[in-house]
């Protein structure tokens, strides 16, 4: 595969980038901090073994004007693109968001509006090239309105709905959309929180995502058990949801 990965410097994206390069796929890292991108690209290059370079290109989810150029740069460096992956997003706790309206605006804009715009650019580019895979990390937090993740969850709910529609419309044309819904994963993003049961490690999540991309699975729950946890949560009556703090 020829993959552009937005968000490969940390957490799930880092683990996925390593896995892709160890498996011999061509990879271009997109992100906003060039020094961090360079360090992560080096890491993935060394892990890949044989001399292969992992190019980088600047792309900041805060600045939609740069999306098309970033994807064009990745495509130039890899000699084409057949897969675009987005693992980048913002996270903040519900308490932080409730007390900081600027942070709320920023998070909702980046996680929903700007991610959709990025995906639109990726969709057009992939379809022009005859198809491919667009894989985006959303969240189980978007499955149901829940007290601890109201705003973050809403941003991911919107993203998941967009990705589902995209998959319905364009799969026949050759564009597979893979919406990844991780449960709790032990990364820097969740470092301050106590891990619940079924918490995942980024390496295992990366393997699930790669399998999803290879099979073209429209929705990937990872770790897999979250499919059933969320099935239960989605079917809880409203009056029960109102009472529990989950």
């Amino acid at each position, binding site marked *: 595969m020829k993959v552009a990965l937005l968000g490969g410097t940390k957490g799930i994206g880092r683990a996925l980038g390593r896995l892709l390069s160890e498996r011999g796929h061509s990879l271009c890292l997109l992100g906003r901090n060039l020094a961090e991108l360079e360090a992560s690209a*080096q*890491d993935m290059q060394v*892990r890949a073994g044989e001399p292969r370079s992992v190019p980088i290109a600047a792309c900041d989810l805060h600045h939609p004007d740069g999306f098309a150029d970033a994807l064009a740069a990745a495509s130039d460096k890899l000699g084409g693109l057949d897969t675009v992956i987005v693992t980048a997003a913002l996270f903040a706790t519900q308490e932080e968001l409730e007390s900081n309206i600027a942070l709320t605006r920023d998070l909702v804009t980046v996680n929903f509006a700007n991610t959709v715009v990025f995906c639109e650019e990726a969709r057009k580019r992939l379809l022009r090239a005859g198809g491919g895979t667009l894989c985006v990390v959303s969240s189980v937090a978007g499955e149901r309105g829940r007290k601890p993740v109201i705003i973050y969850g809403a941003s991911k709910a919107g993203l998941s709905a967009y990705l589902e529609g995209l998959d319905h419309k364009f799969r026949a044309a050759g564009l597979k959309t893979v919406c990844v819904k991780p449960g709790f994963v032990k990364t820097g993003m969740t*470092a301050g929180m106590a891990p619940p049961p079924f918490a995942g490690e980024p390496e295992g999540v990366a393997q699930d995502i790669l399998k999803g991309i290879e099979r073209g699975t429209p929705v990937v729950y990872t770790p897999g058990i979250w499919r059933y946890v969320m099935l239960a949560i989605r079917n809880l009556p409203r009056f029960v949801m109102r009472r529990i703090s989950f």
Partner: protein
Amino acid sequence: MLSGWGRLPRPGKEIFSEDLRALSRNAVLSRGLGRSYGDSALPPPGHLEVATTTMAERILAFDESTGVLRAEAGLSLRELNRIFLPRCWFPPVTPGTQFVTMGGMVAADVHGKNHHVDGTFGAHVKSLVLRVADGRIVECSPSSEAELFWATVGGMGLTGHILEVEFKMHPIPSPWIFEERLRLPDVDALVAALKDSAADWPFTVGWLDCLGGGRAILNRGRWAAKDEAPASTPKPLGQISVPFELPNWVLNRWSMRVFNALTYHARGNVKGLINPEAFFYPLDKLLHWNRIYGHRGFIQYQCVLPNAGGARAFLELLRKHRAAAFLCVIKDCAEQGQGLLSFPLPGISIALDLAVDENTQGIVDHLNEAVVADGGRIYLAKDAFTRAEHFEAMEPRLDAWKAVRQSWDPDLKIRSAQSVRVFGDPS
């Protein structure tokens, strides 16, 4: 609560981040994978948080032509071996477990079965990046800020937060070990065999049955040559986990005797090829093996004695105090490293696992007095009970190390529970 590998808990909490520079900014102490046995990686009284480095684990550079590798401090030895063993590169020095970080290997200046040939890990470190106590980020090496460098090698993370480590990997002829095991009657024969093997074998270690009259097994190995090794790469070994804390009574004198007898008869007098993972890290396949000791916890007491004859007297002292050591590992040590608090010195190293009970402090005191009298020293990475006055009496380099540390951290901002106990830091 937080504890070292010996499971003696203290109030504490780990904080994590992929961004070590941010994480270390106001931290009182860094921690790796928590494999030091005692309180080396626990916060000093009055502090709760330690900065755990394990999410900062990128390989920042590797030069195929020289073997020089640079990594973030949280990279684990297990991951390093997973990547590099199939490519015929191995770290120059490895401790007895893979569950350690590069930063921890520098902080404890770890040694391995090849100490008599290659010295400690610190001897192969080219450069370190530290966040020192005043907040600056400093790169040090044997040629630049050399004092800070050698105070950090073996300095238990107290001279600054280790952010990056650069060291030289060793090329190996094949990813397999050729090993020999020999049964020996007692500790004197074991010590003699270790010394005899040193010239021809890069890796040597001895196992001793402290309860069953001192019978022993010498284990020696070398990298297999290309033409004697199989073409395949050794498969990563499976692991099983001790799922919960066993009751205290499970590990007692009698169960230990049975285990030791099985070990002696099952594992003696063999030779052949072996997976390096099984050779270097025999206990790693049992995850959470520290739970075997039960709720009481345990310590490993490790000392090095300059006289080869000291080992027998030391074990007799152990018997006199009725200390039941489940595991006893004996190693040959050569020249002292340049790290100011580096553990090994020329002689014999003895490591004992002891379950903790109300007599442990007394036993450690007696053992330490014997070590002081013999001119030896203890290994801080294993220690949980040594008194400051005993450590001072063992360590002629302590004042020099303290002076360097003081010059970089006059207010002693970076401290651990161990530094308060052993170095008299303010709590």
